[in-house]
């Protein structure tokens, strides 16, 4: 086994630990946005799709290449847009908050 592959294996193992650690304290309310957000991140396959399409020759390969790029782009765009829409709702809404507060009796 060449040292090249070992370098990639190192990156793989370290990334696995980071991935596990970084989300180990997520409140359950954020599980759905997190799933959607990580879904968007694996859209990085678009990079692979571009390289593959860019190396294609002939109608068959290029057609497949275009399909791969379309699929991967869907993953990226859909993933980030959906996550943003979900998270938009968590932002502070002063109007709603005031309405809720004023509705309560004076303490």
């Amino acid at each position: 086994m060449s040292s090249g592959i070992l370098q990639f294996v190192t990156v793989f193992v370290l990334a696995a630990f980071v991935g596990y650690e970084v989300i180990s304290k997520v409140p359950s309310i954020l599980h759905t946005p997190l799933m959607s957000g990580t879904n968007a991140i694996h859209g990085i396959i678009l990079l692979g799709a571009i390289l593959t399409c860019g190396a294609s020759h002939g109608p068959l390969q290029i057609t497949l290449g275009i399909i791969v790029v379309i699929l991967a782009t869907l993953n990226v765009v859909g993933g980030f847009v959906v996550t943003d829409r979900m998270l938009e709702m968590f932002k502070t809404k002063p109007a709603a908050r005031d309405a809720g507060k004023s509705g309560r009796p004076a303490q």
Partner: protein
Amino acid sequence: MSLGTGRDIVYLVAAVCFILAMKGLSSPKRARAGNLLGAAGMIVAIAITFTTPGIHNLWAIGLGIVVGIAIGAPVARRVKMTAMPQLVAAFNGVGGAAAALVSIMHFSFSPVSLSTLATYQVFEVIFGVVVGSISFTGSIIAFSKLQEIMPGRPITYPAQQPVNAVVALGIVGCIVAVLVDPTKVVMLVVLLLALLFGVAFTLPVGGADAPVLIALLNSFTGLAVAATGFTLHSNVLIVAGTLVGASGMLLTRLMSQAMGRSIPNILFSAFGSVVTSSGATEKEGRSVKSGTPEDIGVLLAYSNRVAIVPGYGLAVAQAQHVARELAETLQKRGVDVFYAIHPVAGRMPGHMNVLLAEANVPYEELKEMDHANSEMSTVDVALVVGANDVVNPAAKNSPGSPIYGMPIIEVSLAKAVIFLKRSMRPGFAGIDNDLLYDDKTTMLFGDAKDSLAKLVSAVASA
């Protein structure tokens, strides 16, 4: 500094963006910024890829990206919040398909002869193909179940698990065969088997468990992407794919824990396919108390503390706005109102919070299960809106029940319980709920939205 080094540095920056994005997504305050940072990292990584030497067919790549955006952006923007879970499944599926295709094309069209590839290189390719394909067809089934194109109940047939095991063994056998002698025929067989396996192993998973399935498939796609990263010698693909793969595994476990079940139990037990018949005979003799909206309105208006327990029924009826209206009407009268949120209320953990946030419910009024349970004994009325399994005491009291061990919102501790339900039909899990027959329970039958609207006017005039 050469262009190649510069490109690698940009990829490193993108990888850091992804890690920080996930870190951000772990806290409510920074989640949105985190997601945008992830998107920024993605754009930078994609843009710099175009500087790679020897990239041809720019028109084709451009066409693919434009078509992808033209389809993806409007769909992602317009879909209803209740349809989020299946949308995530769909976008995950296309990602899996893309990863599998990249691996296949690399294998099939590579100018280098297959026999010159090292064994580990063939393994990287085959791993990407198999896992990506399983994720693709599995996501299609999960999507179909949630979108109700297919029945949500588990689909079973005789000897299902043994057949699946044979298919899985077939895949393993083919992988070994390819590693020994990489031929395109065996490669095609393993591709078809993987596509088949994706369908076969998701069919017996019930619709209620589909979110856990999506989390698992999301993780699979991540691993498939990491495998293509090995094939294409791309660190950023390995990092991003592995991050998703590892976090997806953890998320799958967290979600199944919230349901009090193990992952194998969710995947293999065809949960919810059989309605427990033991309780069925017994329930004939029991009576259910149902009330009018006016009675219940008065009860609510004159209590000190009300807990609203929302479930999927509330989401289906699009009743989150009316629920907030009811809470505000009660608050105007001086009633203390909070929402008790079960971790798996709705169809995904956190799904209910998203829906309620959409209806402008203040964040502080949402209480997570443990917190809500500790305060339940001070609650006068627990108003259960379109939820059933998440409040079913069978999870605590009857060891024989399929949901035994699942944590629940203990509404039975409240002084009175009101169920807004369409019918006496059991929930997703198909299990009868004793609480419905309890003396302190009052039922209000009907669509959750209509019932809540009636309660709002009843409270206003009480």
